[in-house]
């Protein structure tokens, strides 16, 4: 009896030891470790695997140039398996067990929220490369994707303009999670500030992975038949887009009648759809594969060579990863160390070339400057730029169109060093009153 109990406990103890041993081995110091925290299995693998490959590609390129600070970079890849709590566990593992100097990772907001406390507690750096809802600025995180004002608002501006179709009536169609909810809140406030009446805005949410869009598309059609030019602003996420667009195409909603502008649909998603019926629908991003610059051409060429696929697409989050990575390299070289505090301080103001022929600069609010492009879907699945902002747009972490965040700003430079400084009360910590 005692026998098996002790054996069981022995096994447990061994397991614990191995757990500690395998991951706790002290890293050999001749490399700088870079953590990659993207889901390689589960529902998010569809988007995140590409970003893992991108980081590996960038590390490879950097090592060809001799690494950083004379040391080679070494990727530490983990798979949080689209499981949000696992993101936190893996982040802790990367930082405290593998001693990585920086982590590139996360796609969904919830995964970022899940790892945030870990990065704060262990004081490390996360580069987050995906467009998101804003309303956040943390010392340990650098947001290289678009904030709402770098994507949603310019897109709506374009559609409201004469050349964008002078849209008067809006459908805000989204997946029911925080990014669409917040974006739509911001857009609603913005549209109303531009004189759009409440009855000219329709908001609808569907679940993740939604596949039967008949009712929703019919409702859009109905809403669009009120005699005013109507457009759909789509924050539909991930897999649900393909059936959505298929239904749009089949029900004959042409871009010239009711254009759909999407913030989560890029080249990667379109690769899974027959785009012929979708020509003219729009997407707003800070990068398109079709952008015709030498930098982009070279990047695509090298990327395809690295991945061994001559047709592999590129997309906006990849560009955001590139910008983040290059900025980190630059900041480390400037600081002469990978010490997080030095790098975090050093990153502000770092300016690196983006792939669309300009420069992106890391701002004191840990967001970056980006150009905004509106593209229309082409028959070949590419997005052709039809409009772009005249200059770079600074990412605005706290939206000016939400009542509770319009007074907040973030500035991580000393002496303010605050992610939610209230300009009305002059206090850090978001306190409004």
């Amino acid at each position, binding site marked *: *009896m*005692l*026998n*098996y*109990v002790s054996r*069981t406990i022995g*096994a447990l103890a061994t*397991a*614990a030891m191995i*757990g*500690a041993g*395998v*991951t*706790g081995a002290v890293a050999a110091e001749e490399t700088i470790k870079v953590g990659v925290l993207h889901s*390689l*299995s589960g529902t998010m693998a569809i988007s995140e695997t590409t970003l893992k490959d991108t980081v590996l590609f960038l590390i490879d390129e950097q090592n060809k140039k001799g690494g950083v600070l004379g040391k080679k970079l070494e990727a*530490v*890849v*983990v*798979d*949080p*398996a689209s*499981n*949000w*709590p*696992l993101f*936190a*566990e*893996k982040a*802790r*593992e990367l930082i*405290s*067990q593998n001693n990585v100097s920086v982590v590139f990772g996360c796609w*969904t*907001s*919830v995964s970022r*929220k*899940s790892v*945030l*406390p870990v990065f704060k507690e262990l004081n490390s750096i996360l580069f987050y490369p995906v467009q998101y809802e804003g309303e*956040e600025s943390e010392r340990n995180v650098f947001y290289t994707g678009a904030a709402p004002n770098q994507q949603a608002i310019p897109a709506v501006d374009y559609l409201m303009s004469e050349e964008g179709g002078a849209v008067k009536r809006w459908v805000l169609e989204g997946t*029911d*999670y*925080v990014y669409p*909810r*917040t974006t739509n*809140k911001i857009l609603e406030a913005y549209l109303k500030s531009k004189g759009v009446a409440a009855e000219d805005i329709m908001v609808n*949410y569907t*679940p*993740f992975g939604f596949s039967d869009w008949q009712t929703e598309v019919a409702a859009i059609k109905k809403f669009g038949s009120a005699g005013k030019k109507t457009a759909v602003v789509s924050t539909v996420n991930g897999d649900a887009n393909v059936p959505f667009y298929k239904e749009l195409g089949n029900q004959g909603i042409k871009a010239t009648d009711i254009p759909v502008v999407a913030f989560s649909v890029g080249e990667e998603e379109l690769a899974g759809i027959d785009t012929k019926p979708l020509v003219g629908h729009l997407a707003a991003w800070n990068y398109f594969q079709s952008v015709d610059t030498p930098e982009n051409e070279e990047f695509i060429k090298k990327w395809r060579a690295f991945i061994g696929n001559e047709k592999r697409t590129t997309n906006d989050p990849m560009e955001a990863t590139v910008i983040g990575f290059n900025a980190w390299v630059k900041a480390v070289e400037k600081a002469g160390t990978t010490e997080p505090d030095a790098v975090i301080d050093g990153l502000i103001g770092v300016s690196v070339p983006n792939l669309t022929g300009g420069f992106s600069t890391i701002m004191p609010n840990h967001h970056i400057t980006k150009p905004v492009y509106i593209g229309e879907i082409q028959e070949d699945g590419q997005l052709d730029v039809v409009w772009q902002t005249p200059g770079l747009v600074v990412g605005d972490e706290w939206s000016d169109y939400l009542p*509770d*965040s319009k007074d*907040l700003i973030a500035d991580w430079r000393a002496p303010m060093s605050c*992610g*939610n400084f*209230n300009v009305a009360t002059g*206090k850090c910590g*978001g*306190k*409004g009153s």
Partner: protein
Amino acid sequence: MVTNFLLRALDRRTAIVLIAILGVGILLPVLNLATDPSSPFHVPTYVLTLLGKYLTYALLALAVDLVWGFCGILSLGHAAFFALGGYAMGMYLMRQIGDRGTYGNPLLPDFMVFLNWKELPWFWTGFDHFWFAAILVLLVPGILAFVFGWFAFRSRVTGVYLSIITQAMTYALLLAFFRNDMGFGGNNGLTDFKEILGFDIQADTTRGALFFASALALAAGFWICRAVIASKFGKVLVAVRDAESRTRFIGYRVEGYKLLVWTLSAMMAGVAGALYVPQIGIINPGEFAPANSIEAVIWVAVGGRGTLIGPIVGALLVSFGKTWFTSGMLAEYWLFVLGGLFVLVTLFLPKGVVGTFLARDRKKPAEKPIEDVVAPGAVGQAAE
């Protein structure tokens, strides 16, 4: 009566297991806090939180085993109870943030602020108090289980049908909690916790205490399960598992038994969830995913259903495997391993690791009562 009920189950073997669990529960936090990081005996915080998570999983597995291994109810929805317990705790932790949220709103959690909620929904009242949350950790899963079970068992929904509707239950809850309109933070769930009972949630001492609390809960769960199984009630459960209609014909109202053990099990799962959340730092609707429930069942199957040690061992083994395989270049193979494990265990180790172990110890026909081991074939019979 209750003391007696518990003490009666405290045979030598149970005592050893309890001491072992509590010993680990004390030893590891002490090694974490009292030793220098360079010491070979040092337990890193990472390992401590990881094992703390495993312990809550083990408690969940124990809960699943209590109904599946001993009463033949295969629940594919236990993650729902786990998550509900977690949400109850998460709501308390959210209230503890107070005005330290990003917007500094003293009344509302952040996710309500930026979605323009004006007041706290009624179901958030009371969660300022730990005792209230602690009660709800037990009550919410308990009441859901009771209502669900009351309908299901009275209508004699059994076997596969029951499994499938438990899955429907957790799936419906998953969809419901995803809805931002519900007021539970939608897909992002509840996160950014600061304090529990006034202690910094990220402090090593708090982590140590939570680890010990998890061990304590596991030990208590083990003891209660042991006492339940050893009682006449437990024998009736096994009778129900092996031959449900026979049990009815000798006069036991089976639904009452199922309902009681089902509710007890759901409450245990709720406690597991409540301990899981502060250690992980987030609770979101993903915890309701049917796949999570199935994974819990796998822990039990791997460890050995119908034994009480089995689910604990299974949960630890599989979770450890998951941690190990999802790091580095093995990541791509994790699902192959997990999938293969399911297949191989069902095919070759129908009694699980511990069950097989025990069976090897007792080859000859049993000469004394065996409460822990499932007889071969019995489980299949119980299934239909």
